[in-house]
């Protein structure tokens, strides 16, 4: 049994400790907002927060998350009101939408560590998240907008 704390709730799961956190979230805990895209830490669709750091859950063994604080897209905000979520909706970022949870989770760490990111800061932080539909430009604008909201305490 492995005890996990996900979005401030405790879960006990009976899985092989080598199982990637991604599949524990999706198959065992039924939190499917975290997406599978590549399985080899190349696309960023599976980004979650582990003790506040952005990690690729597809290559993070569940044993590493045991007893740690995990936050997924479902737990990013109480009522879909994280500045990034609001900015994403305001600028209508998604096309297919599949990669967007991972994009937002990567951006959330950036904004926490760097409340006033430049274009280059955003480029660097978001380089690991692929969007096949090509919404990168709107993601860039939405991160700036969210930063502004955050500064204004919105």
């Amino acid at each position: 049994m492995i005890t996990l704390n996900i979005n401030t709730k405790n879960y006990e799961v009976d899985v092989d400790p080598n199982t990637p956190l991604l599949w524990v979230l999706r198959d065992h805990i039924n939190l499917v907002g975290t997406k599978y895209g590549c399985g080899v830490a190349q696309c960023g669709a599976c980004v979650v927060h582990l003790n506040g750091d952005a990690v690729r859950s597809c290559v993070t063994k569940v044993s590493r998350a045991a007893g740690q604080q995990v936050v997924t897209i479902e737990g990013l905000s109480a009522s879909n009101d994280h500045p990034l979520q609001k900015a994403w909706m305001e600028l209508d970022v998604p096309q297919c939408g599949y990669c967007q949870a991972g994009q937002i989770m990567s951006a959330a760490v950036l904004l926490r560590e760097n409340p006033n990111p430049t274009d280059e800061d955003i480029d660097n932080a978001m380089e690991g998240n692929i969007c096949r539909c090509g919404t990168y430009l709107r993601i860039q604008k939405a991160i700036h907008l969210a930063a502004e909201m955050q500064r204004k305490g919105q």
Partner: protein
Amino acid sequence: MKSSALASGGLMISFSWLSSFKGPGLSGDSDLPDLPEQWHELTGYIKITPDNVVKIYNPNPEFGQNVMTTLPMIIAEELDADWQQVVVEMGPHDSVKLGPQFTGGSNSTRMYWKPLREAGAAARHMLLDAASQTWNVPIEELTTKAGMVMHGKSGKSGKYGDFAAKAATLVIPKGIKQKDPKEFTVVRHSKKNVEAAKIVSGKPLFGLDYKHEGMLIAMIEHPPSFGMKLKNFDATQTLQMPGIKNVFSLKLYEDGFELAGFDTRTFNDLLVVVGNTTWEVMNARKKLKVEWELVVETKETINNFGRKQEVVIPAGLPSSEEQHKQMQAKAKEPAALLRKDGDPETAFSNAAQILERTYNAPFLAHNCMEPMNFFAHVTDEKALLVGPLQAPGWTEPTLAKILHLPPEKIEIQMTRMGGGFGLRAYGHYLCEVALISKKIKAPVKLIYTREDDMTYGIYRPMYTATYRAALDANKNLTAIHVKGGGIPENAVHANRFPAGTVDNYLAEGWQLPSNITIGAFRAPRSNFAAAAEQSFLDELAEQMGKDPIEFRLELLKRGKENPVGKNNEYDADRYAGVLKLVREKSGWGKPENRKYSRGVAAYFCHNSYAAHVVDILMKDGKPYVERVFSAIDCGIVVNPDAAANMVEGAVIDGIGNSFYGKLSHKNGAAEQQNFHNYRMIRHSEAPASIEVHFVQNDIDPTGLGEPPFPPVFGAVANALYRSTGKRHYNQPFMDALLQQNNEPDNSTERAVDKKTDKANKKKAF
């Protein structure tokens, strides 16, 4: 036509009538024949509750083109509904009620425009009729606005919901007058994605997210290369792995099965592993001991919407290098005549100068972010299938055949798709999972890993084309000749521009078979033809000493005033219109833009027109597309901001694929298996700005998903020429540059993305 009152007293209107709109087909692209010209039934689905909530069912599969929002907007417009009170749901698969229900060929808005307007207008009329009866006033004196009915003379007003019950008892009228575009209050006014809140909070929307009680997970172990099949296997170790239920082989289609046009599949003998969870199955697969064997040459019968053909699938383990050589040899042989105007042979023999250039492009993988997957629960009596696909109506007849069930016993539910780009029009994965479920007698979801997905085939074909132009002593253009082919289809749209603008014109095509499967990829064939043709016209304009936009406009003027030949597919005015608009908006020729290496291209496909100006600067020693200006004519733009988003996406998709896109093979095996060696465009490589401008007119919508994509390749090639001083004839364009800089290209393993590593080095990866 029928309407029925709901027990709740709400109004459910179900429309069904003859609709005189043109059948969609895939817009004449590729060799796909047109679908039926007339859809005899087209049904909208509107539900109004007494408290005035209007529920609209979106009929068409959503893969990111935003039909969940855009199509209901069309109904809401004619219904005069209050958009704030509209709730949208994905409709069921029911082509009698909801029309053709396929996403492809840039047809969603185009084919539903008229039927959905008719549906909205009819429903509004019924509500007016009900109000007229209730208030005992003439219907002509009633008006509507935002979900309210008003009677000006008496000052009475009421909600739609007040009249819904009565309206439900009325006969659904036909031929109700629709709004003049000037009266639009919903259409042409940007509405936000109705599923955005669910997307940004991680709600289960996609096929991969679907859960069902008792659901198992299945994966298929494909042969390691094209030209191979399953010989035998030993699953002893796999079956000992935790969570594994079953390992077996299964034949997808029986011998001699007549394939429908979208029944394409790469492998027919499936080696299936079934278990409890995804990770357990992924792991257990690695323990399989499998012997593969070579496939001999096979014949297949394909019935493509009524047109039967025998196709020979050659044996062998193809390599890209060898296929490229075969194409070069084939290009020298006589080819099929596709179009001839005037006397091109004489024009070329009399030419003072001939410009000849050859263009090449590789296979491309679609790489939808959500890999192929589908859920099935098949019993002896019925089948339930749930997941992401573009065209349920194309796969359902095949499912009926292979499951031996009548179509009405097959229910396909459409989830949101994590991308499609053409790949999800091919329903082999539904057939696979349906047979797996039938065999194991359990609900099951089939999941392709990224590697399964990328190496499976159904790629954008490999293409080559040679363009020739004859110039006289005064550098006047006298003839154009295009000869193009590919694996496995020809590369030429013979009746497209510049056909019709040149006195002497010759188009020829050829094709080579292969056992590498191909399929529609965003703007099939056009995505190569535009790159080649628009690069060639740029070089030709340069040879003639002309501005590339002015040169195209001169040709189009000729095509408008005195067109050559027949069957010219494009409208010269609309074509010229996007060029003029992009010239104006990009400040073409203005001195302040001199710091950019600029390239222009325009193209017509899928009934719409697109032109781009691409501005390249050097960044870290590499060309970077910093700005793009786009001009689009797709008729009425229903949801402008969402449409702009799609154009931005097409531009980025075009830059990415022209720079890096390549799926190559060695001895039958794909050389790229995942994103570590299939390079995708990433965040920092997206342009800093993409300005999207739409031509304003009142033409019914003509489609947008594909048209902006093909000309990006040409505009990028032309800008790269001005940036690097070299013409780029071979896609992907960056291969040459990466090799020059001694960096790995797509055919070489890249350990990890450097910037990803750098950006995340502090993070716990």
